[in-house]
């Protein structure tokens, strides 16, 4: 948009046309106080705080040209009344005065008015100290009030708007920011107003009340202490808090958080701004789901099994025992008799060290980030191969962008992406939401595409076919093979037949293809439901991106919603049975989680090391195998089911207690800082791993037994510049197998050196913030106007290039074979990840109350056919086994689908699942 010249308090600047006076003033370094206006929402002009004097050049009625004065300057005609700056767009030559006496009088007036109905209970208000009402009163308000204190109106307070948020009606200044956030940004229109005048009040309209996964954000943007969270109420005064920058590991978005600590205790979690990731928002899981760090059941000392009991031990004892036992197993049976599982929420440093220990010291490639449950889909490589390119920034995307969301439920899998996608759509992006069932994102979609359950591949082939009809294959510019096979597969059937097969009409497929073809940027999000449909589906998404000509480009690419907060990092670090760090494939297949439990039972694997995963909790086969294994090490935060079976339990430090980097879904690496010392004797996972590695290396040096790989892996492909004697970071490395990291930064420096793609991703580089922030904020300014989120001073992360972009891989377009299924059970069982699930990290948080009881959701038609009513117990039977669950009947679920939460404790999905998707039959249990 063309720029407009305006003069604000004598400062003349150019601002984009369409900017409002408040924002323009901010750009000119002039502060106009606001309450109801928020830069992320439509202005409403309600609070009247931003009244300013505005004038425009007087135009000659005949020529429509500005009238000039004697000095040749345009004559400015001031408007007779003050105007609200937030609702007034700038115009050419506009003159704004924010310091005129009239303006000051009005500002004082509005503040005096607001304070007449305010309880002035700052001393006991959670917002006190970071409250825009306090701050603006100090700067613009009257020093005294003429209001008779006896005339104050009092309301009952606080009233719960839900179990997470409390409303103090006396403090509410009725700015409607909370209501508008829920309506405009979150699309959970659950708040509203009741009554009028002085009795106008905020209410929750939903059942359960304030039913939104983003509710906590309203407490940030509420310009007073009217909305407080039950999580933080009366816990601390804000000036006692020490803000520590961390990254959320609870889902793959990787929101930037501040852990606000007092005396090393977590008081509250707040968002830190990062325009490319979470903007200024976080979801309630990130905000309220970090109480686990202070939970009393955290492990604080190492434990050893003595006489069948786990008893506390020293680190020396524990590490020595682990080293000794693993050395013995390796000695007797070789490295391949040892297997390791590490959680995809651990940091890159932990995961790198873990695989390095296995590959370089123990000489085992038996690694995985899964637990071997039948429902786990194949590992995802496409998100790295074709992820959004360098320089991608979701905050910049709008008109010209097409986003396809396939088989995903972002609200549950990666909540914050709902806000990001909606913001993109609001800025003009076209949002195609394709799924077999409705999700909340449908409401924000420009096009909804509903394919038949199980017909994902047909749908995508149809879309791809329509796209190649539209643009041919000329746009395919990246290195690729298999185009002919792909074309044959696409043209084997007519578009109409494909349309009939997937249940989306040919016209809709063509329209969607046209939307994709015409896009300048193309983003494709896919979630658990898409991945459960098999690798062929995901591969086809890659072909779609490539044929659209968007492979390897900035702001275009595939984004997989993976289960762990650092799944992408775990894949990059090679915590997997089939590839080394940086996607260097292994020649020999090794034992991954899927085969592990049988291998243990068969004696091929004798020792198992589990870091941060809990296979025993949900997988009977794992429990049995761990029971039978010769030696089991578990490192975790809690004494999990798996830990209870271990020979050695090692207490790990939580995300609050250690430095680390995490790679989010779009492959942005972000740094998280240590917020406090580890509790008890717990240690960061990489340190624990190093402790064992050092002992093993020493033992082997001492005994001269097995060879110590001093120069990196023998088949050092994909791992350049091994560390033997090389200067890394500030630390000179001795001939010690490279196990002398002093800090996480040392590990990160080695990752930067040795993991392809991570070059340059060092802690100093990660600290760059690219100031000024994405919207030109001045230091701490937000606390005055926009809310209490923190500005980002610790780095906005580094976006990794995709493998295609960096020329490290080529694309195979040949369609994968689709294994035929010969199971005619009527329903498709789909495991649905929920944000509030059985994750042990929800421990101690108020979100525990939001975790549903287990259930199976059925369509009304399927339920009615068998006379199933909500709450009835139904038995799902597959070729693998049976499972009884209470039924929910969901109106908008398609027929033929049984939807079961994927990760609820005690559901035992593994007993019935035969794979990521399972065909089941359904019987009502009559009691």
């Amino acid at each position, binding site marked *: 948009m063309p720029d407009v010249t305006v003069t604000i308090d004598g400062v003349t600047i150019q601002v984009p046309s369409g900017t409002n006076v408040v924002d323009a003033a901010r750009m000119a370094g002039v502060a106009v106080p606001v309450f109801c206006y928020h830069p992320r929402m439509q*202005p*409403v*002009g*309600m*609070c*009247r*705080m931003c*009244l300013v004097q505005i004038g425009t050049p007087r135009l000659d009625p005949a020529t429509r040209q500005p009238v000039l004065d004697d000095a040749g300057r345009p004559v400015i005609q001031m408007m007779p*009344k*003050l105007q609200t700056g937030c*609702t007034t767009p700038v115009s050419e030559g506009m003159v704004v005065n924010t310091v005129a006496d009239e303006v000051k*009088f*009005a500002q*004082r*007036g*509005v503040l*005096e*008015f*607001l304070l*007449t*109905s305010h*309880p*002035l*209970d700052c*001393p*006991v*208000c959670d917002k006190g100290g970071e409250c825009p009402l306090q701050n603006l009163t100090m700067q613009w308000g009257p020093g005294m009030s*003429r*209001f*008779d*204190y*006896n*005339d*104050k*109106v*009092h309301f009952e*307070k*606080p009233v719960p708007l839900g179990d997470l948020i409390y409303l*103090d009606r*006396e403090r509410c*200044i*009725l700015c409607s920011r909370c209501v508008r956030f829920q309506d405009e940004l979150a699309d959970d229109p659950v708040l*509203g*107003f009741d*009554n*009028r*005048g*002085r*009795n*106008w009040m905020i209410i929750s309209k939903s059942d359960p009340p304030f039913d939104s996964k983003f509710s906590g954000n309203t407490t940030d943007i509420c310009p007073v202490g009217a909305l407080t969270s039950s999580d933080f109420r009366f816990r601390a005064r804000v000036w006692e808090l020490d803000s520590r920058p961390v990254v959320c590991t609870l889902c793959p978005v990787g929101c930037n958080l501040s852990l606000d600590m007092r005396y090393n205790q977590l008081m509250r979690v707040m968002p830190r701004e990062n325009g490319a990731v979470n903007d200024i928002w976080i979801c309630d899981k990130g905000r309220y789901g970090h109480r686990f760090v202070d939970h009393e059941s955290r492990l604080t000392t190492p434990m050893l099994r003595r006489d069948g009991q786990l008893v506390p031990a020293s680190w020396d004892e524990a590490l020595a025992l682990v080293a000794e036992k693993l050395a013995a197993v390796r000695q007797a049976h070789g490295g391949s008799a040892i297997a390791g599982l590490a959680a995809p929420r651990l940091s890159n440093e932990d995961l790198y060290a873990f695989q390095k220990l296995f590959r370089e010291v123990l000489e085992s490639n038996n690694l995985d980030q899964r637990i071997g449950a039948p429902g786990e889909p194949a590992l995802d490589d496409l998100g790295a191969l074709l992820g959004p390119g360098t320089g991608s920034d979701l905050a910049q995307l709008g008109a010209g962008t097409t986003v396809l969301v396939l088989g995903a439920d972002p609200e549950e899998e990666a909540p914050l992406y709902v806000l990001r996608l909606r913001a993109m759509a609001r800025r003009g992006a076209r949002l195609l939401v394709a799924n077999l069932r409705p999700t909340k994102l449908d409401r924000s979609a420009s096009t909804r595409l509903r394919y038949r359950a199980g017909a994902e591949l047909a749908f995508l082939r149809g879309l791809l076919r329509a796209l190649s009809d539209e643009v041919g294959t000329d746009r395919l510019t990246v290195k690729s093979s298999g185009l002919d096979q792909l074309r044959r597969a696409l043209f084997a059937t007519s578009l109409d037949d494909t349309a009939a097969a997937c249940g989306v009409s040919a016209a809709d497929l063509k329209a969607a293809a046209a939307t994709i073809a015409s896009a300048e940027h193309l983003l494709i999000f896919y979630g658990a439901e898409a991945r459960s449909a098999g690798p062929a589906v995901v591969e086809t998404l890659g072909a779609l991106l490539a044929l659209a000509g968007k492979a390897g480009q900035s702001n275009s690419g595939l984004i997989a919603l993976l289960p762990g907060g650092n799944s992408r990092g775990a894949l990059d670090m090679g915590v997997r049975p089939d590839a080394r760090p940086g996607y260097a494939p292994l020649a020999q297949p090794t034992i991954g989680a899927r085969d592990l439990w049988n291998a243990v039972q068969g004696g091929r694997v004798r020792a198992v090391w589990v870091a941060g995963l809990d296979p025993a909790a949900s997988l009977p086969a794992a429990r049995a195998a761990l029971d039978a294994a010769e030696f089991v090490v578990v490192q975790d935060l809690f004494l999990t089911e798996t830990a209870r079976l271990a020979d050695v339990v090692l207490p790990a430090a939580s995300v609050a207690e250690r430095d680390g980097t995490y790679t989010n879904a779009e492959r942005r690496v972000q740094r998280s800082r240590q917020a406090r010392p580890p509790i008890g004797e717990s240690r960061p996972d990489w340190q624990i791993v190093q402790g064992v590695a050092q002992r093993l290396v020493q033992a082997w040096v001492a005994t001269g037994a097995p060879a110590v790989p001093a120069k990196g892996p023998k088949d050092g492909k994909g791992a350049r510049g091994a560390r033997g004697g090389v200067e890394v970071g500030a630390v000179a490395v001795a001939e010690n197998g490279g196990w002398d990291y002093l800090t996480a930064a040392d590990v990160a420096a080695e990752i930067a050196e040795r993991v392809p793609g991570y070059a340059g991703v060092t802690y100093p580089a990660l600290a760059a913030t690219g100031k000024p922030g994405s919207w030109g904020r001045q230091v701490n300014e937000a606390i005055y106007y926009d809310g209490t989120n923190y500005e980002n001073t610790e780095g906005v992360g580094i976006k990794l290039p995709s493998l295609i972009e960096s020329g490290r891989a080529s694309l195979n377009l040949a369609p994968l074979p689709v294994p035929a299924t010969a199971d005619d059970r009527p329903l498709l069982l789909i495991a649905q990840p929920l944000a509030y699930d059985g994750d042990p990290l929800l421990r101690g948080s108020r979100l525990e109350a939001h975790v549903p009881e287990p259930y199976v959701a059925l369509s009304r038609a399927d339920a009615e056919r068998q006379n199933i009513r909500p709450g009835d117990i139904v038995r799902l039977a597959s070729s693998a086994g049976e499972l009884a669950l209470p039924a929910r009947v969901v109106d908008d679920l398609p027929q033929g689908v049984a939807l079961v939460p994927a990760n609820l404790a005690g559901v035992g999905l593994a007993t019935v699942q035969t794979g990521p998707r399972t065909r089941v039959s359904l019987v009502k249990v009559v009691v």
Partner: protein
Amino acid sequence: MGLSEHIVMRELDIPAINDFSVYRQHDGWEAFADALRTKTPADVVNMVKEAGLRGRGGAGFPTGVKWGFLPKGVYPRYLLCNCDESEPGTFNNHQIIDRNPHQLIEGVAISAFAIESHTAFIYMRGEFAAAAITVERAIAQAYQAGFLGKNILGTGYDLDIYVHRGAGAYICGEETALMESLEGKIGQPRLKPPFPAVAGLYGKPTIINNVETLTNVPRILARGVAWYRSHGTEKSPGTKCFSLSGHVNRPGNYEIPFGVPLRELIESPEYGGGMRGGRPVKIIIPGGASAPWLTREHLDLPLDYESVAAAGSMLGSGAVIVLNDTVSAPHLAYKMDEFFKHESCGKCTPCREGTHWLVRVLHRMAEEGHAHPEDIPTLHGIYTQMAGNCFCLLGESAVMPIKSALRLFPQEFEAIVRQSQNGHAGKPRPAAAQHAIPLGLASRR
């Protein structure tokens, strides 16, 4: 001297005009039929423009000009008839509906045709239960006679009229709040621009007019522009149905040409019939509660938009409230502002908080007889902080009573302060302090 022929209150000429067949016998619906057959919408707009019809809802904005603001070629368009009539002292719309409903419906139909709208809504004040039935019956009769519905009189023009009853809020008479309410939302004004003519009901171009405004339209078409302009003044042509109330002998609605002096309305035996008990006039509120007050000096003021505005007030809705010397100015201001406080929608700070504060102070002064010397400057402070700063005109209107009272009768406020300071206070102070809760305890619960 009364009108020989009324334009709006024609029940005075034709007593049974509220009967559909009687209305028809007196050429009822013929203006509409004639417009459909022989005129284009633009012809009708032009006639209304030339007649100089001005909106009777308060602002006196020229109706034809307003109709001309509709953006070209954007459809559908809606016509809204504003019958929220909630301003204290205003009661002529109610009478029009009660006694001459068919002319209103015909006016709605002609106006809808003029603005090329096929859907019109009549928004009725919630309390007008019986009137709503009357209107609905009149609409049903028009449908039956073929003046509403599809392909009216074979001309291809379609029109549906719906009646919607409000839920009892003065603010819903404000045009954009009315639209919100009609859309099923909380009745609060919208940000302008966009103005209703550009984006109104459901975001579509919308024209909103008062009941009395629309009731004029059939007569303009039937009798012609020249005849219409033969009433009233140059700038305020036609007649106005004044709602006269207060201490007059004959309160009621009187249709008189614009420009007749206030004195005649109050004193003529045909109209107000003079002051009750012959007591002197003290305060005249010429245009509903929102209008600045006039006094005895203004009795010779001609009742037209320009003259009343020149005297510093406004003709507004034409509700003339005349009060005698028994009325206390502080008490009147209190009562008036109590109304605005009660009706404030709460959306903007100055009105929501300002009316509340004004009423707290005025209640203490006027009802309890307690006042501090600072109360008078405080009252001045409150209304000056409101004036010009509110989101809509309701808040601006709330300034008028207190500002008028303090300007015209400062000594009455000073007297209360004096008495109060001298210990002559009336009733003992019913301390609001009783429900004041100590700080901290209140919030901690």
